[in-house]
């Protein structure tokens, strides 16, 4: 029983470690290759298109 629990715990820990390592690995790649900015810069024209369509009460 104790062995099984220990095994489960180890599995959980391993999963956790894998998740953390995976998270760090993925986010580090995003960080290092500036993928976050590359993505947001691709979003900008879409947003601008949207802003042009917003109804506004333009006056002095």
């Amino acid at each position: 029983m104790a062995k099984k629990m220990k095994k489960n715990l180890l599995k959980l820990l391993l999963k956790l470690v894998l998740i953390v390592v995976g998270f760090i690995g993925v986010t580090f790649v995003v960080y290092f290759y500036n993928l976050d900015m590359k993505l947001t810069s691709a979003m900008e024209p879409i947003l601008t298109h949207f802003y042009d369509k917003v109804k506004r009460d333009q006056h002095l």
Partner: protein
Amino acid sequence: MAKSKRIGTQNLGRFYTEGKVRNRREWRGLADTAYDYSRWLYNWFNMARIVLVKPRNIKAMFRYRWMGNYLAVPMMVDRHTQGLRGEHLRICHAEQDIIIEDVAKLLDKLFRADRRIGNDTEFNKKVVLIDENAMQSVMMGFPGIVPLSREIASTYIPVLLNQRAALHYIDIAQEYGLAGDVCPMPEAEAGLVIDDDAPIVGCCAIQCNTTCDGSLMGNGVVYKRLTEEGIPTHQLAVPLRHREDDVQEYAAQEIRNAIAFIEEHTGEKWDWAHYFECAKRVNFATRSRLEWMEMSKTDYPQVFGSNLALYTETNYMVVNGRIPLFNEADKKISALAQKAYKKKKLVANEYRHRAIVWGVQSHYYMDFLVWLLNCWGIIPLTDMLSMVSTKIIAEEDTPENREQAIYDIAWLTENMLMRNRTHGGYKVLLDELWEFVEEFNADMVILWEHMSCKALDGMHGQFEEKAREKGIHLVWVSHDLFDPRVISRQGVRDQINSYMRTVMREEPVDPSLEVLSDEESW
């Protein structure tokens, strides 16, 4: 001048692309890269926690054109951390990250109060809309009030993030007949209001005549819209000749009137205990800044450049001791700076010239000072925006000090950054520059010529003559503050490049930075 072992990455220019963003981030060695990565992650986490998880803020993202620029926040940090290592990287993050958090909170509060978005009417009852150009020292005794500046969020910060952020608003103002030669900052703010792109917040508003004629007059456009929106507005007039004794009573009375106006419209009462708590923190920030300045007078300056300017703008002008977290940042910066100073660390590979940076910086190229250091080895020891009041204000709650406090608030308001130099007569702009040159042992003055800033333009010839007289290298760097169409970032750099090559006959420290393809860059 001083040289160190390799500090920063060589060939920083290779990160630039012709697009909006850089090709990748810098490798700074394992420890520093890991640190920078962790701060990057922290900033994204903070922005998500404060802004992105709330539906109302997403709604605002699709309502306000200027919100699109906030996509570029991490890149702004990257621009300012270029080439930094060790303590200096950490100092920069201490400055930048707290500003990011503060701005994220500002956005969140703005949209919570905004009648179009969150429309939290109870919250709005305690929100006072503050002119971007006003020192927020008048809020130091109002712990229950939330002062918000919509211009900081909509025009000031966005241009730091994206060099083209204000162009739409500038064009709108000119379509309505505003002359094209006025300062583009109040011009963009006027355009923003005309374009109906400003959040509608606050139970009342305070406008201010700092910083310049354009800013004063732009208030008229904003006032018109505020009146339509039913927001009562008070104009806080701040004397121009702020060093004169015979204007101080006027300034103090203006503060009393502003406090009375806020009390009337918010139902809050001025809290002296809170005021003096804030005053202590203001003094702490002043002492910290002075300590950093002292280091900058030596061969081993540690806290300087655009990071200091941005941090001072926030801490001195907006925070005014109201947010304790900024004192923590001050302490952290001081500790890191002391550590690096003891080790005689340099911030970049090579120091060739010691410069005082004067005038109004190009807002669309705030990280120019980083470039100056990395490309040509010119240390921007201090800049005009950081040379604000160093007066220690009354901080003990006594009857005499309560009277003095009003004069202190007035003094701080009069000495809002930039206007403390652009107003007040030629002594504060012209004469004191040469005193700083001597004090900081500088051999060069980098003089930003914000072309539509009439207060600076008006001293052009005097600057040149005095520099010649004193044998100081004075390099003009023209720009148009918010509008890179007039002079591009490369146009800004070229002015330094040609001076350094033709007059100084020098080669750049990092030649890859001399010409950069950042025309389209954020």
